[in-house]
């Protein structure tokens, strides 16, 4: 009797070709991530409570401090002040870095003339230039945008540059065989083939842009989330100091996943090539 019922159950789940989709038993990846984060927070809480609150803090104390800053609205205005130069500086870095990288990778003469500055700019300790930049641009919005731009443009540019160099010659020849002009080959073949590298550069640049933003807020007009960090550190209020740090980390993770999401929409073929599309 039970055998008949089982047969019926199988039949009902089979599709028109007679295939039965195997039941999904794997734990979704985001659940694994959540478990990992939860365990880390618990361990931090246990360890943090054993230490003098001036030297370290722990999640529950940070949550209380977060609530305090959020209630007064100080956190939101600081976040807004920080994000304005961040978005502009990072945005300009993408708009300049990616096309520059395409040209460097595609034209040997351009690369010979200007490649060395990009390599040098990437390796240069830009923090050391901050005092000079404040002399030129003052302490306000412009200098913050500039610092964020300078820190994030080079990873985007270099990644794009390397990406262009990795485009198979055979794909370029498809364009050449069709008598496509260089500009068309660059736009219609090299650019799409390089897109995954550009996106990887954009992800790398997020981290540098966040660091640049805090440096700018420490060393120019003290403002935004950086100001909360400095002021609470000076008051030995370690829990409050951690609030902007946590906010920044969460924002950076969110932005990275957003870029990954856009990449999957714009460049779905990349996941197919790598075999990551098993949905």
């Amino acid at each position, binding site marked *: 009797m039970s055998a008949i019922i089982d047969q019926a159950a199988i039949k009902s789940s089979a599709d028109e070709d007679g295939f039965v989709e195997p039941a999904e038993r794997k734990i979704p990846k985001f659940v694994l991530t959540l478990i990992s984060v939860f365990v880390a927070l618990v361990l931090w809480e246990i360890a943090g409570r054993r230490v003098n609150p001036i030297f370290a803090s722990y999640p529950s104390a940070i949550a209380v401090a977060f609530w305090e800053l959020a209630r007064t609205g100080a956190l939101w205005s600081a976040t807004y002040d920080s994000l304005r130069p961040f978005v502009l500086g990072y945005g300009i870095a993408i708009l300049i870095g990616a096309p520059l990288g395409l040209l460097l990778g595609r034209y040997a003469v351009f690369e010979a003339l200007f490649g060395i500055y990009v390599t040098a700019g990437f390796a240069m300790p830009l923090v050391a230039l901050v005092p000079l930049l404040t002399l030129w641009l003052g302490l306000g919005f412009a200098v913050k945008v500039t610092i964020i731009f300078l820190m994030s443009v080079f990873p985007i540019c270099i990644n794009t540059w390397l990406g262009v160099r990795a485009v198979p010659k*055979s*794909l370029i*020849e*498809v*364009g*050449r*065989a*069709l*008598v*496509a002009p260089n500009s*068309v080959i660059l736009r*219609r*073949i090299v650019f*799409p*083939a390089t*897109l995954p590298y550009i996106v990887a550069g954009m992800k790398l640049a997020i981290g540098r842009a966040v660091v640049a933003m805090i440096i700018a807020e420490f060393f120019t007009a003290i403002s935004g989330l950086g100001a909360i960090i400095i002021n609470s550190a000076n008051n030995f209020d370690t829990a409050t100091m951690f609030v902007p740090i946590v906010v920044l980390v969460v924002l950076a993770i969110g932005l990275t996943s957003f870029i990954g999401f856009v990449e999957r929409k714009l*460049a*779905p*073929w990349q996941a*197919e*090539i790598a075999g990551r599309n098993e949905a």
Partner: protein
Amino acid sequence: MGEVTLTNVSKRFNIRIDGQVQKVNALSHVAFSVADGELVALIGPSGCGKTTALRIIMGLETPTTGQVSVDGVAINGCGYDRGIVFQHAELLPWLTAYENVAFALEMKGVRGAVLKDTAMRYLDLVGLTKSVNRRPYQLSGGMQQRVGIARALAIDPKVLLMDEPFGALDAQTREQMQGELLEIQARTKKTVIFVTHDLDEAVLLADRVVVMRDGRVSEILNVDLPRPRTDIEAIRGMAAYADLRFRLWKSLHAPSVSTQKLESVN
């Protein structure tokens, strides 16, 4: 029309091996011509220069000396009078099958409804109407190569150049594609020059087989089998087929000039 003539074509590459620049003569004084509507196979061991010859005819490489002309006009780089099918299809991975063919037409300046109709017509010709919206990685190797052929034919070239087009396919798919190529050629009357290392493929498809050794043309064989040859089974059963295949095999296995030299030194 689609007459191709190679006159005294030589190609020398400079390659760097362990820091030393070595001159390699990929082609030496190659000369042959292909009549309009003719199917010619370039065959020879790997490294004999057959692919280099094809790339020079396409205009992807420039010859060190000599010239290639199509219908009496010397070529200068790539042109729409020639279309090439690469060994590994080389479809643009971000475009669908349809878009890959449309891309070729767009490069030629075709737009609008004409572009759409022409692309669909050639995809239909290679038997791919159902999968036009799939991207290359969602297509099998044989289907990818079909798109590659449709892309090359869509620009309506006088000469179709193919670089081991079926070499990467499994035996069954290869035979099927060979039959389809014969049908397409019978319908479109294009001049076809293809590179192969497969004796059967050369005899089955070609009117003439150009045998190449060490960058030179060592022999040109006429394949006087009747056409149409779309009935592959009947052709393979012919005594003349076996005879031609054997003659070609002997031609490829005759001791080459360079091996003779080596043997005399030893």
